[in-house]
């Protein structure tokens, strides 16, 4: 049982009973812990005590964060092993124990022996040169990373650590959740609720579909009991008390850690303008409560419609989290360009700022690619976004990567002026506001201007001269 917090602390019995009555008195009261949902499957005869299971997803999060560390080492076989290998003893490189923030698991096998390649979006990645599928882009990036020092190609301003990690966060976890589990797997004939997900499983089809989708988001199971700031601190490995829900002194990566886009959601929400994290996890919880409530029978059409409503809430908010990230890093890239321009004009050395510029652009590009792997056609928005960002940052001499030749080498051509590319970054921010309605808007480069227009702008007047 995961839910040990109530018994571990001396909570007055009346509170326990009170909340138990409160929860059972309303059929639609929301659970606050994504754990311990009962087994509803008819004729289940195994030894499991709960129907919840999503360790495979958490293993993939651990693979992604470990892979991120490996890119800068330039070891091709290690990268491949974490991306597509099957060794259960692969060490969890990140997150690893840090001070009192003790991680319970140390190998991927302790979670679930999985890989990433099988779950990478197979469609075209339009924002990357070379007409490649998701796995091909990943393989291409690994190869490039292995050929440069520390996974960083200064000549093309490519930071593969950022590119790979942000791209895969989209192409694996986001895609799997929104384009598979929260999509066709919610249909009546796909993984029905009155049958086990697979033979011998303790969970029904729909229970497990929903649990896997939850796992891919990367939020701790007890997210609804803590704040966005807490979840942020968990991801940063700064707050063991917030993470260790069952008081065993360790952080269990299978349900207590914050990963991936859940971490980014918390980073925006802690600013107070948005509630992406709790809206998403809340919708997951409502969906899971609904599935549990039908007690192992097939979902009716109206119940599935309700479930799809929760799925839509999740998809919309998740997409916004990625769009917020695109917005944020477009702003960072803009600021870096300002600094670089000033240093060049004063004849200084830009190598340090160039490194930061490459890093921020890598995050921008990675999130922009991630935004486009939801398995839906984003139409003109996609075209605009990819043109504005291009295939590389603007390079010195005002050139940009425009393609890949037959040897897999980058082709560069003349592009924008420096200022022109800065304007592209502003337009990327506008696009995120117009198309996705982002609200947190970190690094907003025109917010000050909007405020000035509001306070000092012209007012209508009929005063004559």
């Amino acid at each position, binding site marked *: 049982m995961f839910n040990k917090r109530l018994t571990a602390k001396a909570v007055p019995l009346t509170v326990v009973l009170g909340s138990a009555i409160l929860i059972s008195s309303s059929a639609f009261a929301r659970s606050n812990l994504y754990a311990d949902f009962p087994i509803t499957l008819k004729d289940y005869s195994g030894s499991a005590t709960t129907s919840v299971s999503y360790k495979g997803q958490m293993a993939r999060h651990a693979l992604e964060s470990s892979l991120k560390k490996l890119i800068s080492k330039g070891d091709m076989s290690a990268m491949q092993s974490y991306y597509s290998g099957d060794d259960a003893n692969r060490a969890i490189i990140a997150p690893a124990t840090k001070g009192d923030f003790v991680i319970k698991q140390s190998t991927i096998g302790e979670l679930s022996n999985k890989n990433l390649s099988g779950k990478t979006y197979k469609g075209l990645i339009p924002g990357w040169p070379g007409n490649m599928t998701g796995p091909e882009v990943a393989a291409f990036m690994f190869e490039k990373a292995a050929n440069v020092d520390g996974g960083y190609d200064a000549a093309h301003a490519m930071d593969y650590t950022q590119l790979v990690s942000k791209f895969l966060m989209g192409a694996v976890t986001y895609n799997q959740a929104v384009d598979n589990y929260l999509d066709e797997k919610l249909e009546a004939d796909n993984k029905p609720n009155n049958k086990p997900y697979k033979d011998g499983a303790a969970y029904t089809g729909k229970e497990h579909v929903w649990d896997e989708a939850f796992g891919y988001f990367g939020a701790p199971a007890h997210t609804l009991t803590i704040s966005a700031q807490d979840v942020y601190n968990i991801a940063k490995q700064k707050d063991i008390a917030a993470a260790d829900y069952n008081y065993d002194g360790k952080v269990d990566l299978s349900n207590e850690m914050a990963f991936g886009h859940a971490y980014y959601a918390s980073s925006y929400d802690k600013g107070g303008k948005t509630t992406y994290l709790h809206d998403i996890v809340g919708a997951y919880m409502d969906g899971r409560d609904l599935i549990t409530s039908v007690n192992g029978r097939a979902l009716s059409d109206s119940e599935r419609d309700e479930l799809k409503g929760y799925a839509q809430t999740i998809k919309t908010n998740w997409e916004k989290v990625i769009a917020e990230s695109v917005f944020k890093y477009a702003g960072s890239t803009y600021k870096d360009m300002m600094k670089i321009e000033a240093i060049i004009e004063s004849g200084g050395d830009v190598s340090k700022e160039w490194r930061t510029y490459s890093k921020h652009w890598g995050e921008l590009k990675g999130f922009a690619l991630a935004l486009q792997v939801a398995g839906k056609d984003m139409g003109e928005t996609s075209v605009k976004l990819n043109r504005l960002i291009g295939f590389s940052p603007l390079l010195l001499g005002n050139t940009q990567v425009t393609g890949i030749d037959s040897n897999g080498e980058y082709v560069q051509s003349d592009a924008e002026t420096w*200022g022109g590319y800065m304007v592209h970054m502003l337009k990327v921010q506008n696009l995120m506001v117009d198309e996705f309605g982002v609200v947190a808007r970190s690094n907003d480069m025109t917010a000050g*201007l909007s405020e*000035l*227009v509001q306070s000092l*702008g012209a*007012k209508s007047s*009929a*005063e004559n001269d």
Partner: protein
Amino acid sequence: MTDFFANFLNPEKRLFIGYLISAAFIALIWLRIAQKKPLTEIVSGFFSTNVWFSKSALADYKLMVLNQFFIKLLAPILIGQLALTIFIFENMHLLFSRPSASIPVWMVMLIFTLVLFILDDFSRYLLHRLMHRIPLLWRFHKAHHSATNLTPLTVLRTHPIEAVLFSLRAIIVHSLCLGVCFFFFAESVSLIEIFGSSMFVVIFHSLGSNLRHSHVNLSYWSWLEKILVSPAQHQLHHSINPKHYDCNFGAVLAIWDSIGGSCIVSEKNQDIKFGLKDQSDNAHKLKNLIIGS
């Protein structure tokens, strides 16, 4: 109706009660000390029913009320301001590199306040000149010049189409100023304000701007009238005498008229008739003010 009274309570407006009081004081001193008029004559002049209830003044009031409603319809134009400002800000990137070195905030405030004032004043002069020189525009501006009595309220004797042009001018100037200054100074941009309005606007109005539309012929030294427009100079702009036509277009600064060759300095104790040549009393009818006669 609250909007109507806001004209008198908002220090951004020329008809703000404080500016009217300061103008009255300045007029009193001018008429008593410089022109040595008896106090009773001065005071009765201020409250002369011949002026305040003249056909001309009544026409001022009608246009004032009409514009009160019309101005509300212009709100959509103001919304375009942000888009224009961002457009200008973006295009600055193609012409200049954006500086990241920080300039002291007080200096940025001074630069911005000064640039906005100068650009605002110059564009008023330019538009005013065009209103006179382009026949189509003169048809609208004529409504203002048909005033045969000048009172501070004549400032709002404006054809509605002219009000649209004034708003567009203000939007272009503000967008340009904000877009360019934000590009160079980012978040440091702000206005040196007194009572929530630009320092220069408040100073200009406090020093008797309301006397421009009045019969108080307050003049400056002629050297100063080549730099700053005096009330008497603006009264020349309203003169019925052909030799004064198309002079003194400026709002605050006379520099533009001096450069443009349209600056006429005032004469001592000038006594000027206001209005348009050959105009009849019908000119003050609202229909004629709007559609023309």
